[in-house]
């Protein structure tokens, strides 16, 4: 605040407008650059998935196909193996998310509203679990599931997915319960409500938005997982992401348009969830508990 009169100087105001035009151009230019980076790949996936084969495998590629075809989408829905993977994805991601939220909600509430010895240590142990390398856990999980006969089953996938969704759920729900005032719980206690009543009758109904958001994150993480599903699921229980790798990769000539159409199909449920639940997802994401 040294020299307030300076802002009133005429020459400065002129440079000010010039600067503003320059800033505006910079903003627009920057926007175009990042928008091309962010959206061209999606456009390209879409275009490839409807371009007839002879045009896909010609060089240089055309940014707009001369004719379009939906045969690759039909191929997906006519392929029983892919449909099975798709169903597996729904079963595994859904069960994982439901059970992680159900278990995580009690832990989150306890971490947030109770005080006992070891609470902080346990909390940070569970937080740090999101930072343990999945690949390392995978080796022992594989042996463990092989030993108890769970290898190549839905259980192997649900349990292994829970290893990354549970810490996420506990942490997100703890964050949510932290925002609820203690008085709410105290008042219920004064009215003679038991802890179970407090949780099920009072907290869970209030916490619905947080439960939905947590469920969505757990579902997305499970839906998107690749390496656990590839290694532990076996051909019958594998989800779509590794299923696509097995179906299309390692052929002599990868069928890119088929792969792009299938890629859009596997991305679609997530994008649809996102469109309807954007508010919840952005709030959860910016809380910082979620893996980027």
């Amino acid at each position, binding site marked *: 605040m040294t020299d307030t009169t300076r802002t009133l100087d005429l020459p400065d105001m002129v440079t000010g407008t010039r600067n503003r035009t320059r800033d505006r151009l910079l903003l627009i230019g920057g926007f175009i650059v990042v928008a091309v980076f*962010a959206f061209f790949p999606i456009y390209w996936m879409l275009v490839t998935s409807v371009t007839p084969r002879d045009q896909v495998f010609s*060089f240089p590629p055309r940014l707009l196909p001369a004719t379009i075809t939906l045969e690759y989408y039909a191929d997906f829905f006519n392929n029983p193996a892919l449909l099975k993977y798709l169903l597996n994805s729904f079963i595994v991601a859904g069960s994982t998310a439901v059970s992680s939220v159900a278990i*995580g909600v009690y832990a989150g509430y306890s971490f947030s509203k109770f005080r006992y010895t070891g609470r902080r240590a346990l909390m*940070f142990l569970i937080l740090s679990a999101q930072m*343990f390398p999945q690949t390392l856990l995978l*080796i022992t999980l594989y042996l463990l599931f092989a030993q108890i006969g769970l290898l190549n089953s839905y259980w192997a996938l649900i349990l292994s997915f829970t290893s990354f969704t*549970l810490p996420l759920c506990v942490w997100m729900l703890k964050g949510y319960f932290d925002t609820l005032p203690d008085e709410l719980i105290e008042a219920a206690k004064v009215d003679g409500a038991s802890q179970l009543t407090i949780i099920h009758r009072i907290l869970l109904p209030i916490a619905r938005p947080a439960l939905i958001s947590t469920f969505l994150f757990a579902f997305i993480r499970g*839906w998107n997982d*690749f390496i656990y599903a590839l290694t532990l699921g076996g051909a019958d229980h594998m989800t779509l992401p590794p299923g696509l790798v097995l179906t299309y990769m390692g052929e002599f000539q990868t069928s890119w348009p088929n792969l792009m159409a299938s890629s859009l199909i596997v991305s679609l449920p997530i994008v649809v969830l996102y469109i309807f639940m954007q508010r919840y997802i952005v709030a959860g994401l910016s809380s910082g508990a979620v893996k980027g």
Partner: protein
Amino acid sequence: MSDSQIGFLLVLPALILFAVIILYPLLGSMVMAFLDKSLVFPGEEFVGLENIQRALRRDFLPLLSTTMIFTVGATVLPFLIGFAVALILNGRVIARGFWRGMFLLPWLIPSVVVSFLWMWIFNANYGVINGMLRELGLVAENINFLGSRNTAMWSVIIAKTWNTFPWITVMVLAGLQTISRDLYEAAAIDGADRLRSFWNVTVPQLRGVISTVLLLSFIWNFQHLETIYVMTTGGPSESTTTFAIGVYKAAFQARDLGEAGAIGLLWMALLSVIVIVYLRFAVREDA
């Protein structure tokens, strides 16, 4: 029952699950560093430090340098782009809410799809980047981006960047919204231009967000597997073989759990250092 007993009972299911599917597997895999053990054949033998010594002699340094290149690249590049997008979307952009939603799309897409998509974009024979480079006359012959040692790592880093920058944008945007307008006005009165108020107001105010985002990105990239595995499986000639790929291949292709455990133990030791830094930081923020 006392309140603290109830509190403990409520965590118990999560805790048991945690012990069985996270803690035990983590420790179990590290113990294998000291065993001669196969993924498929029964039996095991204690071999002491043999596996670790062998890993240190042979695999450790190449794995470390590859992992560091990937980690630094896949942390810095998304950070710069994500930050820039946040600043742009925080400015006066038409339909700002719509764009904020749209820019999250690359983050939502499964990592496997991200890998497929960029494999196709970088494709040596029919890829769109080769097409553009050739049309513009920048190169005379197609580049085999994923098949050559010089370009494979960068191709993977770019794919990963595309996948993660939206997360950084969301985090930075949330941080930007907490900065009071007064600070910018005060800076403007002091005669600071845009650039100056960015360095003197925005950056210091976002210090917490910036450290969180950089530390977490570093930790996650240090152990990232999926994008690399699908795009290159660690090749060509090991040029994208990070710790994660090295451990996976040792365990599930060579089926040598001793070697996988030894690499894993060294990897985990390095990772713990960064995780401890982060946790100390997170505890301070939390307190």
